[in-house]
């Protein structure tokens, strides 16, 4: 319940934040809902925290080139209640409303969640299925990382230690249907298995899982079973049969490998039925 000591800097611009972060021994603090719990248990003992929550541009949600740009420091509640998100990316609002509890949603941020890369976090499946891009910035400049390249392992991402996430760019495809379906771990309410699915009018389907494996991922086998086909019972059953195969499945207190894989199939089916 008592963190180790650290220095604290409140950044007012992204450039300030990058300068203050330094290399390796600093940590970005936004909502703090991934970091502060780890600090309290001393699982994480940084030298320095750089608070980016007051940088207005990082909290903004705006339209750009037909898509939406969600600032990294936008809270889950900002996203769940934002009219633009609700009308153009309803899956984002739907999933934001399922994260943690109201207090967590009021503070926790999308950027913080993605950077922390908890293998059971909700956002990972959603950004994967939506084909989003993660905009990051560091001393060497800005770059964009496709969501499908972002998650590299358990609590591991393609983000360098001296970089910060600035925004999530999400394409908005007219006529696309998308949903996030989650079986919550009963205690933590993280995803025991979460499945995000998006179908664009061209018949292409993106399917992504969180909680299922140590790394959130697109399930290409399941996608192949339904992409370009009518979303009928047979196609959905085929996708469910293909889902969760060929990846290492998480095992914990609440779900064995067999059960978790079964849930993946059930929740994939529910997701596809919801967007059919």
């Amino acid at each position, binding site marked *: *319940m*008592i*963190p*180790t*000591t*650290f*220095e*604290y800097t*409140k950044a007012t611009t992204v450039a300030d934040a990058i300068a203050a972060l330094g290399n390796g021994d600093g940590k970005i*603090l936004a909502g*703090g*809902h991934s970091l*502060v*719990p780890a*600090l*309290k*248990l001393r699982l994480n003992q940084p030298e320095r*925290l750089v*608070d980016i*929550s007051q940088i207005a541009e990082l909290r903004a949600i705006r339209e750009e080139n037909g898509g939406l740009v969600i600032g990294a420091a936008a809270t889950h*509640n900002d996203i769940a209640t934002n009219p633009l998100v609700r009308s153009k990316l309803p899956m984002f609002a739907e999933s934001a409303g399922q994260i*943690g*509890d*109201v*207090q*967590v949603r*009021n*503070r926790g941020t999308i950027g913080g969640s993605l950077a922390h890369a908890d293998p059971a976090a909700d956002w990972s499946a959603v950004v994967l299925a939506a084909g989003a891009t993660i905009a990051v910035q560091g001393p060497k400049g800005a770059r964009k990382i496709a969501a499908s390249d972002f998650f590299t392992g358990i609590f591991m991402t393609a983000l360098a230690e001296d970089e910060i996430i600035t925004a999530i760019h999400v394409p908005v495809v007219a006529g696309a249907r998308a949903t996030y379906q989650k079986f919550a771990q009963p*205690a*933590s*309410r993280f995803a025991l298995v979460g499945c995000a699915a998006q179908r664009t009018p061209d018949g292409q389907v993106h399917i992504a899982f969180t909680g299922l494996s140590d790394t959130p991922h697109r399930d290409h086998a399941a996608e192949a079973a339904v992409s370009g086909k009518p979303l009928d019972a047979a196609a959905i059953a085929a996708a469910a049969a293909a889902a969760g195969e060929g990846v290492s499945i998480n095992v914990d207190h609440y779900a064995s490998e067999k059960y978790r894989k079964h849930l993946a199939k059930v929740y994939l089916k529910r997701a596809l039925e919801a967007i059919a």
Partner: protein
Amino acid sequence: MHLEYREFLGTLGSNSNSVYMGNKIHVKVNGKDHQHEVEPRLLLVHYLRDTLRLTGTHIGCDTSGCGACTVHMDGQAVKSCTVLAVQADGASITTIEGMANGQLHPLQEGFHQMHGLQCGFCTPGMIMTAADLLSRNSNPSEGEIRHALEGNICRCTGYHNIVKSVQYAAEKINKEVAP
């Protein structure tokens, strides 16, 4: 209760006399301005309880799970155990001590009327979370109330009377608002 240790409250000593290292914060708590130098690692809940001696905000866990420490920060319910005091710089905080305004807040009255509390330990956090709900949704269904309170654990009541307490408050607020 006639327990004489009450005399110690709010006057003497502190839970935390850390050597503070230069982070000055300016916080408005229950309408009152406070300025302190705090260690960056100081949690908002410890700042409220130890520095300001507002002990109505409780600590029930160390993993941000129980909700006993819920306060409002700029009008929204937050778990004050998961906010650093330095993050509250410039913010306006409301704790359970700031809810009654001459008379009990409808939620405080509701919890009393509907027996929404037993040991009282989770109660401040419950009331603060319920207030967040009622500020967004003045007429919540039973399901919406239960969903809104999922981040607050009560071991005494089985939540039955807490739900009724929130319903009582919603009804009272709506009556007051109605012409």
